[in-house]
């Protein structure tokens, strides 16, 4: 636990000291801001209850930026040579992976926190329904965590950050859009595709529903990819 927090802190600080992270955060805010304006132009002002700007497009922006945040986590260390420092320190692979995950999650949560002025504007100038906004943010947090774990896994299989981002983006896109394909198919296979898709569970949050099954779904996908990352590191020692 001590080691995990040590690595998480270093990882979080690494974001704060790198100009890249600020640029990424700025572009993220611009895009979410654009979605917000788009949404404001679209709604009936008497009903500012739904956090619609956080739906599909919001999801995609979040997933994209999670992949970008996560791409450096392991790939950069491999390139710098510091990976050898970490893997030869008396620290478990699990602690390294959890530390890196938590550090990047800290960064993603900070970025999400900066978007809170949108609901604040809604509250000031309208009368939005608070519940769906809070559950939407819970959903973004969970989706973000899942995306980071997928990005972390992608980062563990290569020493090239761009390749890591592309792999993560690809896996995320497949897992997201597979649900829409599943809906179109309709059959039992379609149901399964919808179930494993990242997209099919999100609407619950937008409607203000906290469904334990949905939370467990996101947490299990996250855990699965963290586990795969640990295995990927272990494999690299033996190959």
């Amino acid at each position, binding site marked *: 636990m001590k080691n995990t927090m040590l690595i998480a802190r270093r990882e979080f600080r690494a974001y704060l000291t790198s100009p890249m992270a600020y640029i990424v955060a700025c572009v993220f805010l611009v895009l979410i801001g654009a979605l917000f304006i788009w949404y404001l132009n679209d709604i009936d002002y008497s009903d500012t209850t739904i956090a619609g700007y956080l739906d599909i497009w919001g999801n995609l922006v979040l997933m994209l930026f999670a992949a970008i945040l996560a791409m450096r986590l392991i790939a950069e260390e491999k390139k710098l040579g510091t990976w050898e*420092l970490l893997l030869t320190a*008396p620290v478990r692979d699990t602690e390294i992976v959890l530390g890196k995950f938590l550090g990047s999650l800290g960064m993603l949560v900070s970025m999400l926190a900066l978007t809170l002025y949108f609901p604040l504007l809604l509250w000031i100038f309208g009368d939005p329904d608070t519940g769906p906004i809070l559950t939407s943010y819970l959903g973004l947090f969970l989706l973000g965590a899942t995306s980071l774990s997928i990005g972390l896994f992608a980062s563990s299989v290569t020493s090239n950050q761009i390749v890591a981002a592309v792999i993560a983006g690809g896996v995320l896109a497949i897992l997201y859009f597979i649900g829409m394909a599943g809906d179109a198919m309709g059959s039992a296979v379609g149901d399964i595709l919808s179930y494993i898709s990242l997209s099919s569970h999100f609407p619950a949050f937008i409607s203000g529903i906290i469904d334990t099954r949905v939370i467990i779904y996101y947490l299990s996908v996250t855990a699965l990819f963290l586990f795969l990352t640990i295995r990927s590191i272990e494999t690299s*020692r033996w190959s």
Partner: protein
Amino acid sequence: MIRVQNLTKYYGERLAVDDISFNVAKGEIVGLLGPNGAGKTTTMRILTGFLMPTNGNAWVADCNMVTNSLEGRQHIGYLPEAIPLYTDVTVRSYLEFAGRLRGLDKYEIKNRIDDVVELCHLEDYIDVLIGKLSRGFRQRVGVAQAIIHEPEVMILDEPTLGIDPIQVAQTRQLIKDLGEEHTILISSHILPEVSMVCDRVVIIHEGRIVAEDRIENLSTILRNSKNVRLEVQGPHEAVTIKLQQVPGVLRVQYQEPYHLVECPAEQDLRSSLMTAIVQGGWTILSMATVDMSLEDIFLELTTEEESDDEELEE
């Protein structure tokens, strides 16, 4: 302190380390010597727990690095060939992180940073970003992180690679100083370095150990011949022919202005050589026996290996 037993490592199909065994006793400085690609880095990576061997075992400070790597890693200070530095932090915060990673607490770290910074002469650079340091200073920071937790065993992979001659000398001195309290395994492809710093050398080539001994023994044991160096006033072709005719002489080479005469190790041919020159009507200006340098041995070892392989292939 370090025990390597029948260690073998395959990278896919490629054999990187082939059944090697050696020991390093407590307090010893041992050099792992070999050309690039000989398997030095792989061996060190296995010893530090970065890689697992395909076969065999390695122990560091009585911990099996295959089954109990986590505990073993606590006793090791490791400087990889590519110095593992975060470029966007200061020397101080990097050393803090390296120390915490090895389990030191805040107060221990403060003292240890002061110690290692003094030892590695980094006082003026402690608050400088690592990215702004030159290669030589980065290498010192690399050494500093390897000793911050006072490890019993230090493993240094090519510690003088890519730094200037003055810094090389300083680094060698530093390693010697550290050798008084630590057990050190150091890899190098430079012979003079190993002979300057190490008590003992393990020569490794194409994944196999080709020789292992104390520096001073190596030159006598591995050598079946010794050289006599003559400076003769006279036509060198004729002198060469004359010298070759002396019974016992293995080979004569002319390297201006000397004739190098290779003689069997157990025979002293100097008086016969002298007589031969005098009989030829020439004058001897100087005569000396020359010890083969480690460099020659190393060349000989590796070239012999290669020619053996060639013969086998034929």
